[in-house]
């Protein structure tokens, strides 16, 4: 059964996590398992992706119960893409973690939890069942709670309290929304829900349900005005953790929003207006947040928020091209944001601080490293033709088509501030003359590390930099992918048929 491969990305990480738990007592073995497993998961993701690309949407009914009775897993182009991105980002973070995470943290389950997190992400992307999606979300948040608190430092805990509370709160809202949805339709299968929700006469209730989903997922996606947890916490854990958070976690919220609003709640003008408004405000508020920060990790946190606006904007515009733009942006953003936080980790390794005030001199001392870091830094701005640039073409064009100049303004504003902020980072962190390195007990600066460690740190950054360069220069391929996803999402009967098709044929 070729459909089996839909579940492979899940199974691989599940098995990895279990194996890692069995090797609790040996960090060395854990590292080997994680490293090898990440490669395996990348191969699986590529396999799944190419199969979906060539053969179209794949579905598998877990437990062999035909939809909508069991839990369906669906790998359409969107899901397969997200799984692939997770694998790419995951392999980078896995290696980076092996190189940078304190032994003490590794001893307390860092790697198993990391793979649980990746498991949750893959599950969330592949599931075709709304409640099952909730469960995957829970896997994701509990893993992230553990990762964000692992080590239990003061700032970690303070950040974690907010992160925890607001994310749990989001889950409650999500669950509430599922309750209402089940109450209205008696179904959980998303394809089935699509049909049933469309048949509900009381559109007001449908709209309220949609708003609940918007808020539940919106908190996780960190859109305005629901993003508070993100700036409070993302800078607190080790950079490897921030990297996987920054790259993937908010994106799963975005994914869910896009999925739900293209499959189940479609064509509600009021909601589209709201989403567009929120997108614009997210772009704006995130940008000014980034503008005023001094800690590079915090700057990146706010950039995450701001740029979520681009993705939400694509959803709100609700045309094939706009959704394609959002998808392109997601692809770019996952790779680049993951890398940015790893870069912040590298900077910390080099200089022992993340405060712009005290940073400096990296360019003079490490020109090649600086060049390497330049790639994600400039990609995030979207300096053409780097990766962040391309999706904006579709987004601006589509905003123009509805003659919403505010949105164009927001896009330009956010891009400009990003440009400004990155230029300032370059000037302050790389150009400015370096200060004396602070002495931190038991901290090993980059230049003191063994070559092996250096490679573990630089390898992932270079790998993702290479990917983002590919996204930028090979934009045609990415755009074709994004357009295909956009087309599939905007024609949701494709999805529905691939899930429920068999049932319809049988009388």
């Amino acid at each position: 059964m070729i459909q089996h491969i839909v579940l492979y990305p899940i199974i691989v990480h599940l098995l990895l996590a279990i194996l890692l738990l069995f090797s609790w007592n040996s960090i060395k073995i854990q590292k080997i398992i994680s490293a090898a497993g990440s490669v395996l998961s990348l191969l699986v993701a590529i396999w799944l992706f190419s199969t979906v690309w060539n053969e179209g949407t794949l579905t598998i009914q877990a437990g062999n119960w035909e939809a909508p009775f069991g839990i369906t897993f669906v790998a359409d182009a969107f899901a397969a893409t997200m799984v692939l991105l997770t694998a790419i980002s995951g392999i980078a973070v896995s290696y980076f973690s092996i190189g940078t995470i304190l032994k003490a943290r590794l001893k307390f389950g860092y790697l198993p939890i990391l793979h649980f997190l990746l498991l949750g992400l893959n599950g969330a992307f592949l599931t075709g069942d709304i409640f099952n999606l909730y469960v995957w979300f829970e896997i994701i948040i509990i893993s992230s709670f553990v990762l964000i608190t692992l080590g239990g430092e003061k700032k970690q805990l303070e950040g974690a309290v907010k992160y925890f509370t607001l994310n749990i709160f989001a889950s409650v809202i999500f669950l509430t929304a599922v309750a209402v949805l089940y109450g209205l339709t008696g179904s959980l299968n998303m394809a089935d829900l699509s049909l049933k929700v469309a048949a509900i006469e009381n559109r007001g209730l449908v709209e309220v349900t949609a708003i609940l989903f918007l808020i539940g997922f919106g908190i996780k996606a960190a859109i305005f005005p629901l993003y508070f947890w993100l700036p409070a916490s993302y800078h607190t854990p080790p950079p490897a953790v921030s990297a996987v958070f920054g790259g993937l976690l908010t994106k799963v919220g975005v994914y869910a929003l896009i999925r739900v609003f293209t499959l189940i709640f479609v064509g509600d003008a009021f909601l589209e207006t709201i989403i567009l408004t929120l997108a614009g405000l997210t772009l704006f508020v995130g940008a000014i947040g980034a503008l005023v920060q001094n800690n590079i990790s915090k700057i990146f946190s706010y950039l995450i928020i701001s740029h979520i606006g681009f993705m939400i904007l694509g959803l709100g515009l609700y045309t094939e091209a706009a959704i394609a733009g959002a998808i392109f942006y997601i692809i770019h953003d996952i790779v680049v944001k993951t890398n940015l936080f790893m870069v912040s980790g590298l900077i910390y390794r080099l200089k022992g601080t993340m405060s712009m005030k005290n940073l400096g001199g990296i360019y003079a001392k490490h020109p090649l490293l600086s060049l390497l870091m330049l790639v994600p830094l400039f990609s995030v701005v979207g300096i053409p033709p780097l990766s962040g640039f391309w999706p904006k073409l579709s987004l601006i064009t589509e905003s123009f088509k509805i003659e919403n100049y505010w949105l164009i303004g927001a896009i330009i504003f956010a891009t400009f501030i990003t440009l400004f902020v990155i230029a300032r980072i370059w000037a302050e962190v790389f150009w400015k003359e370096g200060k004396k390195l602070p002495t931190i007990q038991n901290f090993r600066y980059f230049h003191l590390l063994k070559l092996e460690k250096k490679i573990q740190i630089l390898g992932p950054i270079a790998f993702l930099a290479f990917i983002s360069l590919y996204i930028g220069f090979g934009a045609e391929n990415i755009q074709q992918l994004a357009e295909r996803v956009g087309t599939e999402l905007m024609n949701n009967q494709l999805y529905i048929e691939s899930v429920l098709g068999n049932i319809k044929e049988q009388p």
Partner: protein
Amino acid sequence: MEFLLAILIGLLYASGLYMMLRRSLVKLIIGLILLGNGANLLIFLLGRITKGKPPIIPEESKFFLDAYADPVPQALILTAIVISFGLQSFAIVLIKRAYKVVKTDDLDQMNSTDEFS
């Protein structure tokens, strides 16, 4: 009965929220627990409630002989309850640890990560 239950669920949501808005960590966690209970009961209620007919097939039979309660919401709630248990235990330990490290139960004093630095 549904009417009263709906009000009670509203009460759970309201109390949960109110507790979350307090400044105490302990209250915050209690609030989250109350909210979680509210959500579970909401699934239960909206899945439509049936009295005295548990979804268990009688011993002698292979099917249900008469009306029975919808098992799906029950299964969902079970999963949700268990998951919230996991989260709650983590939360409870988190407050313990946070208190030990930050040395306060007052949430208002835990905002260093939001300060400009």
